[in-house]
């Protein structure tokens, strides 16, 4: 039986998705670590199924400014993946890769933009690589897109994409810890419902059969 809405997932299915989050985020952390030359650990990733307005409160208020990298997924799994990069993450990347002090988002120019886009892209790609290996499926990724704006509007991108299918949004992801400091880089995987069913079937946790 296929699920029709994210909130119908069973606890076994949620655990499976959490495991994917764990492996994916772990791989992404390793690639981040080699990019910035510092050890990076991950915190227990979470799977969250939230209503729209709840999701925006969760990420820390709608008008808060943040940087974000978005990659579209197609082929056997369709959806999008977002890397939400809050200021501490931007500072870390600028300092370790460009040897620059960044204090605010206004200081993000072409060079920083390009570095942040690429870091986001590499982390997303490693996450997806882990997922394709695990599930034995093919996923094509689009060229990454970057923006700095209100995080409410950035989070609304996956919502608007699946708004016709669901009143909920599912996110899989977690935070990083670097130099003993928690870095709120959130990697959010948002597959559409059809793809989510397909993925669960491929992983052998389809609830109905």
């Amino acid at each position, binding site marked *: 039986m296929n699920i029709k809405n994210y909130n119908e997932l069973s606890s076994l299915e949620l655990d499976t998705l959490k495991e994917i989050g764990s492996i994916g985020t772990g791989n992404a952390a390793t690639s981040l670590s080699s990019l910035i030359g510092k050890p990076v650990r991950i915190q227990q990733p979470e799977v969250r199924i939230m209503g*729209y307005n709840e999701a925006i409160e969760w990420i820390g208020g709608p008008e808060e400014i943040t940087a974000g990298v978005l990659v579209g997924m197609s082929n056997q799994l369709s959806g999008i993946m977002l890397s939400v990069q809050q200021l501490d993450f931007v500072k870390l990347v600028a300092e370790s890769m460009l040897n620059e002090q960044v204090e605010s988002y*206004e200081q993000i120019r072409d060079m920083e933009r390009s570095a942040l886009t690429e870091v986001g892209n590499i982390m997303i790609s490693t996450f997806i690589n882990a997922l394709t290996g695990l599930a034995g499926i093919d996923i094509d990724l*689009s060229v990454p897109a970057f923006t700095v*704006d*209100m995080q409410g509007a*950035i989070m*609304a991108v996956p919502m608007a994409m699946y708004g016709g299918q669901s009143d909920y949004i599912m996110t899989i992801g977690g935070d990083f810890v670097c130099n003993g400091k928690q870095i709120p880089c959130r990697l959010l995987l948002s597959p559409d419902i059809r793809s989510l069913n397909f993925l669960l079937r491929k992983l052998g946790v389809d609830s109905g059969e």
Partner: protein
Amino acid sequence: MTVENKITIGIADMKMAKDSGMLITYALGSCIGICLYDQRIKLAAMVHIMLPLNMEPGRKNTFKYADTGLRETLRLMESKGASRARITAKIAGGAKMFELSGGNLGNIGQRNIESVHLNLKKEGIQLLKEDVGGSVARTLLFDPATGLGCVRCYGRKELII
């Protein structure tokens, strides 16, 4: 614009205010905030729609969509004494947050703008002002006392509409 007595409208939500208070909806990306206003009785409504067309079976979630959201809001305003002939509209939003090449994403913002325009026309509501499109997120405020709206963006001056 000072903000007191804030009345916050979430995503896929609608609220009304009469005479005073400040209607506000945050971080419109591809979504659109529609302010409807009857100047004579100072009754204002704000809807935060997310998608252009309601194609859900049963058509619940009225305020999530431009077509049903607008129609339902007008109905509720009329039941509070507003007159269709006096109601005017101001809108903001419909941006494209990420520039994706090859885009299977499509441009939801643009489709929202077109649907709101079309449905306002269909309902016979005059569109007074708008701040739509582009690639910036917008916070929209509307004051029922004056009928003035205000759009707040990152890295841009406030705009009165």
